[in-house]
């Protein structure tokens, strides 16, 4: 028997070729008792390995292969908690001083962190076997021996390489001289020899070479796999003592991640108060504010008492206080924020103003947030307006310090496109061909032969087959570390005592070596500070209302249950409204027809993979429309399912159902939720099946219903919303919809200034606003600011009271006193600093002419050309082509040259309407002058192609031909290969459905053509019109229309 002491997983990025799970499973299969995971300069994979080892009962030794500043290596294994902390601190030192992706420590630092660590000195890159001068070697070996004592081992490695004979002789001689015990090992890089080609490819990717030119960078043979005990003993048959010593090392390393004891950082408390008392005080103070009374309703008080008791018992007070402090900081700085997720189930969070949904009134389940049975910390996600999130992040760093606050990592993993690109490069395929190939793949697609053939690759050739196989193998391998969008790990102890910290690519950011799953698995507290564009949008709207109409509004003061708002929502007139603007949501809105806030909560959560695959959507809609009776399988379930007409739509309902109908405790119900979320991965949900069904039957519930409920529970495994989460989102959605309905100008202006965000491009937002009667004015160097602004319209100005034709999806017309002036932020190739130059010059005195503008702004030729092409100089009476010609001459003129005025000015042909819009789209991604198809409408009509308005009045089964600009392509995983597209013209949207067979036939044109023709039949159902495509084609026009970037396959 032996213990593999030096295993590197694929978390030794681009070196190890097996997942940590695979190493642990293989060790278990071989009957090994222990295994040491020692990745290169990190502990990235230890949590996954730990979880798997815990599951299989394997003793896992934790450590790392540490790189020294002389480019040699040493393997350090944690003996105890202290040693593990030392290892993390040592790695932190090495990482923070090195460029991203590298680590270097000194020998002195290794010796300084020796306590609690076992050092295995050996391997190809170690000083012990290297042909160094003996004096230099002794200078290192002496202090090392002194620091580690008998915990220093000479690591004798054998990989059947001829060079190892000499190294081994040297290692043995030196070990003997310094009295270092020899221990045997293989540097394990993969769990099976079959992974050797992948390891070679990973090495090539790391070094940026191909397999043909890799030379000695790749390993010379496939001897780096996990050996069976028999094979290992045979390999070291001449030195059984070295083999036996592997067991000795394993017996010395008893540290387990279960020993990590984490304390949340304590907040500064008022004198004489405990954190529990302080939290209670703040909570009830907040409750009085929330309920606008000193008499807090009894049910609320009871709920708060219950929650506070549990929070105190589980010692979570500090966490709540931290979140409260962050929210207070945001409020003080005027930053919009709102808690979401399961935190909205907590009345304490509501009273602390972390969340905005009243869980008591909504009847939300607190156990979904915290439960006694589950010894896991609560998870509070805080949405912050995205443009100001960095302020909050820096505040957290300042408050806790870099030692106690670090951002959680995320691992960038190989997906199909990156896999094909990197593996293909390593195999020597031309990069241009690989680029063309990867463009044919979407994010969700697997590696397929078919795409290769489309791209001109010969799928039968062995080289291509190899590419396919390796690209499949490498999928899901971590490639490098990145930063989580907003997850923070905060600790009372310095974070490097738990996990190493390293530099992120972004300046000023540091990141830990674990991702959010690792942090959660270990029960550490995480604070999620997430950027939400919708909050930025709302903030902009509120500011505009205050500035131009003197209306002081915030989310809390938006009138509830406004019928006009819901009328617009029911017509799917929701472009730019958070959560209910997507193609799928828009298709659902006319069917669900939300009438109140709770309907909106359902709307937000129903268009999700969970309810869709669980088969809950259609029963719910039928019952809502009175086509099916609302019935409950048992009267006891009525309170649980009443809100959703007897169909479970939320995770909480499933949990409550388990409690009521199957006698689950709240904690068990939460475990059910967790197993739901992970059922595809773990299959743990199956163990609930019998229990649920049997117990439900015992309660008098029919078997058929019980089985249907279980199927629905499985559906939640795909992705379902908790009710609290949907409730938080629905608040933002309603606020947006209300603003859109009543203040469309401010809504549009705010939305344009919050870009990039949401589902639609600026072009679509502008077109939609125009259809709603919003007046948009073009970019103009005299009038435009950096952001879009509002300009007062004269009372009789055209546009103030426009005459409109009936358009689909248009629920109302704006009658506003303001027009939107597009901002210079929309000019491509023009930055905010350049805008500063214009603002500074115009503040002195207005520009009188183009020449004056050029002379006083000091913009370069490219920036001037950008403005000219955007039509920003038309205010000087200079057409775009003239302005382009002139600015080029002016910007190049030197002070000593004669004025350009002396030069003959050529006559350029003025731009026609199509060209004007085309220039707008090229330079500003939108046009206030018209939709790209407007000038072509006559031609299109001549070709028998109607517009969207015409189609919206069509009847079911009509056969039609249509052409429009593609603004969205989607192929959801829940749709069995069906592709949905939204096409746009000047009159509105057309939703196109492409069945799988049609998609296969027209995949290239579907994916690549921005202006697309569709032949098919209309499907009209409850006012929702879909065009079911039979064929797709490229319309033959002499001049192609401009198009903005479409929202594809996200």
């Amino acid at each position: 028997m032996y213990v593999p002491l030096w295993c590197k997983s694929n978390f030794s990025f681009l070196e190890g070729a097996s997942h940590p799970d695979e190493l642990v499973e293989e060790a278990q299969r071989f009957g090994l008792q222990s295994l040491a995971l020692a990745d290169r300069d990190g502990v990235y994979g230890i949590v996954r390995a730990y979880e798997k080892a815990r599951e299989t009962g394997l003793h896992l030794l934790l450590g790392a292969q540490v790189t020294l500043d002389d480019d040699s290596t040493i393997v350090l294994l944690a003996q105890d908690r202290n040693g593990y902390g030392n290892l993390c601190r040592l790695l932190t030192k090495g990482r923070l001083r090195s460029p991203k992706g590298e680590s270097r420590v000194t020998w002195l630092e290794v010796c300084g962190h020796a306590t609690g660590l076992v050092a295995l000195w050996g391997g190809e890159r170690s000083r012990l076997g290297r042909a160094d001068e003996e004096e230099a070697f002794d200078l290192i070996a002496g202090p090392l021996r002194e620091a580690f004592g008998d915990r220093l081992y000479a690591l004798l490695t054998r990989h059947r390489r001829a060079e190892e004979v000499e190294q081994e002789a040297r290692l043995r001689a030196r070990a003997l001289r310094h009295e270092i015990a020899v221990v045997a090992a293989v540097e394990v890089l993969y769990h099976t020899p079959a992974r050797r080609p992948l390891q070679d490819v990973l090495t090539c990717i790391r070094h940026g070479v191909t397999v043909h030119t890799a030379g000695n960078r790749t390993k010379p043979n496939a001897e780096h796999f996990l050996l069976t005990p028999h094979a290992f003993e045979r390999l070291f048959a001449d030195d059984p003592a070295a083999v036996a010593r592997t067991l000795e090392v394993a017996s010395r390393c008893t540290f387990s991640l279960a020993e990590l004891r984490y304390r949340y950082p304590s907040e500064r408390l008022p004198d004489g108060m405990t954190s529990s008392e302080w939290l209670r005080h703040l909570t009830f103070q907040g409750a009085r504010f929330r309920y606008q009374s000193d008499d807090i309703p009894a049910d609320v008080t009871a709920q708060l008492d219950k929650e506070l008791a549990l929070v105190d018992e589980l010692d979570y007070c500090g966490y709540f206080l931290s979140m409260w402090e962050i929210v207070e900081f945001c409020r003080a700085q005027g930053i919009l924020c709102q808690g979401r997720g399961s935190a909205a189930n907590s009345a304490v969070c509501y009273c602390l103003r972390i969340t905005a949904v009243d869980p008591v009134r909504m009847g939300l389940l607190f156990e979904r947030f915290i439960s006694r049975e589950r010894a896991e910390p609560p998870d509070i996600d805080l949405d912050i307006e995205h443009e100001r999130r960095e302020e909050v992040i820096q505040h957290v760093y300042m408050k806790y310090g870099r030692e106690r606050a670090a951002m959680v990592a995320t691992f960038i993993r190989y997906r199909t496109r990156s896999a094909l690109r990197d593996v293909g490069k390593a195999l020597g395929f031309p990069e241009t061909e690989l680029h063309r190939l990867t463009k044919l793949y979407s994010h969700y697609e697997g590696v397929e032969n078919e795409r290769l053939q489309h791209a001109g690759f010969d799928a039968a050739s062995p080289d291509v087959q190899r590419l396919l196989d390796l690209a499949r193998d490498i999928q899901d391998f971590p490639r490098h570390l990145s930063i989580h969008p907003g997850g923070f790990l905060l600790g009372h102890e310095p974070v490097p005592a738990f996990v190493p910290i390293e530099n992120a690519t972004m300046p000023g950011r540091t990141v830990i070596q674990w991702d959010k799953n690792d942090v959660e698995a270990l029960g550490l507290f995480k604070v999620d500070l997430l950027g939400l564009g919708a909050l930025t949008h709302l903030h902009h709207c509120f500011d505009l209302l205050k500035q131009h109409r003197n209306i002081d509004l915030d989310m809390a003061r938006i009138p509830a249950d406004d019928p006009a708002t819901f009328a617009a929502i029911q017509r799917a007139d929701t472009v730019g409204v958070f959560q209910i603007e997507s193609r799928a949501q828009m298709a659902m809105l006319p069917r669900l027809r939300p009438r109140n806030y709770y309907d909106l909560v359902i709307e937000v959560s129903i268009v999700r993979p969970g309810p869709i695959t669980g088969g809950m959507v259609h029963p719910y809609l039928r019952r809502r429309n009175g086509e099916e009776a609302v019935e409950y399988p048992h009267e006891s379930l009525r309170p649980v399912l009443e809100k959703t007409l007897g169909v479970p739509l939320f995770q909480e309902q499933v949990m409550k159902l388990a409690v009521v109908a199957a006698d689950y405790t709240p904690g068990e119900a939460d475990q059910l939720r967790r197993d739901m979320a992970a059922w595809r991965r773990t299959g743990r949900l199956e163990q609930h099946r019998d229990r649920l069904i049997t117990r439900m039957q015992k309660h008098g519930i029919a078997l058929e219903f019980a089985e249907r409920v279980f199927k629905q529970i499985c559906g939640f495994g795909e992705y379902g919303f908790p009710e609290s989460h949907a409730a938080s989102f629905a608040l933002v959605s309603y606020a947006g919809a209300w603003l859109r309905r009543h203040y469309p100008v401010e809504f549009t202006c705010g939305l344009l200034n919050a870009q990039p965000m949401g589902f639609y491009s600026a072009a679509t937002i502008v077109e939609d606003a125009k259809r709603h009667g919003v007046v948009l004015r073009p970019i103009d160097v005299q009038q435009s600011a950096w952001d879009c602004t509002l300009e007062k319209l004269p009372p009789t100005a055209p546009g103030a009271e426009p005459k409109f034709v009936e358009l689909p999806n248009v629920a109302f017309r704006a009658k506003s006193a303001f027009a939107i002036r597009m901002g210079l932020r929309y000019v491509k190739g023009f930055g905010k600093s350049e805008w500063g130059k214009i603002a500074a010059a115009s503040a002195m005195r207005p520009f009188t002419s183009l020449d004056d503008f050029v002379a006083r702004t000091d913009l370069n030729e490219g920036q001037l050309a950008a403005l000219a092409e955007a039509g920003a100089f038309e205010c000087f009476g200079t057409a775009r082509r003239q302005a382009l010609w002139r600015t080029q001459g002016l910007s190049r003129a030197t002070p000593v040259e004669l004025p350009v005025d002396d030069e003959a000015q050529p006559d350029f042909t003025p731009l026609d309407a199509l060209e004007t819009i085309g220039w707008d789209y090229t330079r500003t991604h939108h046009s206030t002058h018209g939709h790209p198809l407007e000038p072509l409408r006559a031609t299109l009509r001549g070709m028998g192609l109607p517009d969207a308005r015409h189609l919206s009045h069509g009847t079911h089964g009509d056969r039609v031909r249509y052409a429009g600009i593609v603004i969205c392509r989607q192929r959801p995983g829940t749709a069995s290969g069906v592709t949905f597209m939204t096409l746009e013209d000047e009159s509105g949207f057309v939703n196109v459905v492409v069945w799988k067979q049609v998609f296969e036939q027209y995949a290239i044109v579907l994916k690549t053509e921005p202006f697309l023709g569709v032949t098919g039949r209309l499907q009209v159902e409850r006012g929702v019109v879909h065009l079911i495509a039979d064929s797709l084609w490229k319309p033959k026009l002499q001049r192609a229309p401009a198009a903005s970037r479409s929202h594809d396959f996200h």
Partner: protein
Amino acid sequence: MDRLACIDVPAVPLQLLLRAHPQWVGHPVAVVDEDVPQGMVLWHDETARQAGIRRGLRYAAALGLCSELRAGVVDAKTIAVCVAGWLERLRRFTPGVESCSDEPGVFWLDGRGLRGHYRTPRAWVDALGQESLAAGWTASIVCGFDKFATYAVAKSLASREGAGRKSASGESASRGGARVVFATPQDETVALQRVPLDRVGLDPRARDTLGKLGVRTVGEFVRLPAAGLLRRFDGATYRLHRMATGQFALPPQAEQEVEPVCAEADLDPPELDVERLTFRIKQMLDPLLDRLEREGRALATLELQIGFDGVGPVRGRPAVAHVIRPAAPTLDAVQLLGLVRLWLDATLLPSGVVALVLAVEPTVARHEQLSLFVAKPKRDRLAAARAFARLRAALGDDAVGRVRLTDGHLPEARFTWERIDRLAEAALQPRDDLVRERGVDTTVLVRRLYTRPLPLPSRPPQEPDGWLLCGLDHGPVARFVGPYVVSGAWWRSEIHREYYVAEMRQGDLLWVYYDRRRRQWFLQGIVE
């Protein structure tokens, strides 16, 4: 015939690329400067052009316009060879041939003085067309009066070829490319005005800006004020404008062929005596060296071509050709003749020499300052270079070389041989006494490798006399150390070798391996 003609072999690199990738025919194709997504499009075909792809675009951006676009790199050397071939081909039609330095594949031919050969300009153009067709290329040919006009019209024909039509200006198309003959300069000017501006090799930035200004033809371009263009665009755009307005109406600037430095002689009767042959070579060499001296040049190499009595020339060349490389460029006839003599002595002449050709590759002569009092180094590297030259002359070019270590796992992949012309500066070696003092073991084992590993007979490890791995010559194996495994190359034909050092009972140390794929033992080398 006072005409000139322009031949445009459209996008030579593109045609070369399509020859390398025949499966790409029918797809949009582009040549890029680098095989990376950010590689710049240098040439593209008409299909790509119709998709909006233009020179100067990045490949990734071009792919956004045309998802079917195939692209590859064509190296400059391949293009240069192709252009040289065209030059040689076209010189058969006129001595005045100019190759466009900016655009490979564009040539101007001077038609002056060719009336005796071709009755009409059309006949000349047809002959040129036949030649390009015979060579398997597509080329547009325009015969006219002005270099730029013929060039521009030829470029514009690329997209219209194959239509099989004939216009008033005499435009016709046939297999292999379109041909135009202008009857009058006025016809030529009218055609020039209509040429799309993006055909005439304009800088991509200028082309795009002018396109935005609505300037899309040469006619519109020439109407722009020249001074305004100079102010706004680069000098090349300005020059193009001047050419388009006829201000650079120069005839084709024929490239002068470099007169070779060579001498030929026929020997009658055939010469068999090396002494006399050497003397004959000296007679031929001296005038060549005199000429080089007058021109301030020196001889870098001397190619000696010899024809033998009764031995026919091989592909039009004499039967034997050998290059003599002196240690350094020289005008020293004695040194050169010494090298020639060495080679002649080492070469077995099959029969009497009937033809001699000496071809000299000259180089600029270097004059170094005389050094009177500089200490002479112990190692005279110049003398070594002279010795190398003599060795090469006597034994062949590969006679002097050295091993260079390379990156590889297989023994045969760990080194390569390379020629050396000059001895490098010696590196300092540790002194023996120092090595002794430190007690370092300096015993060196030498492993001699076979050029090709020798297959060994299959012998059972248990034989009455022991394991006769290498047959009877080396006796049975006494000790066997290994295996050391080298495996890999799974991306072509996979290898798996298990290496051993076998100590034979007779004392030999053999380096052997078992090839697991071929299931056979091989002798890789011997350890001494």
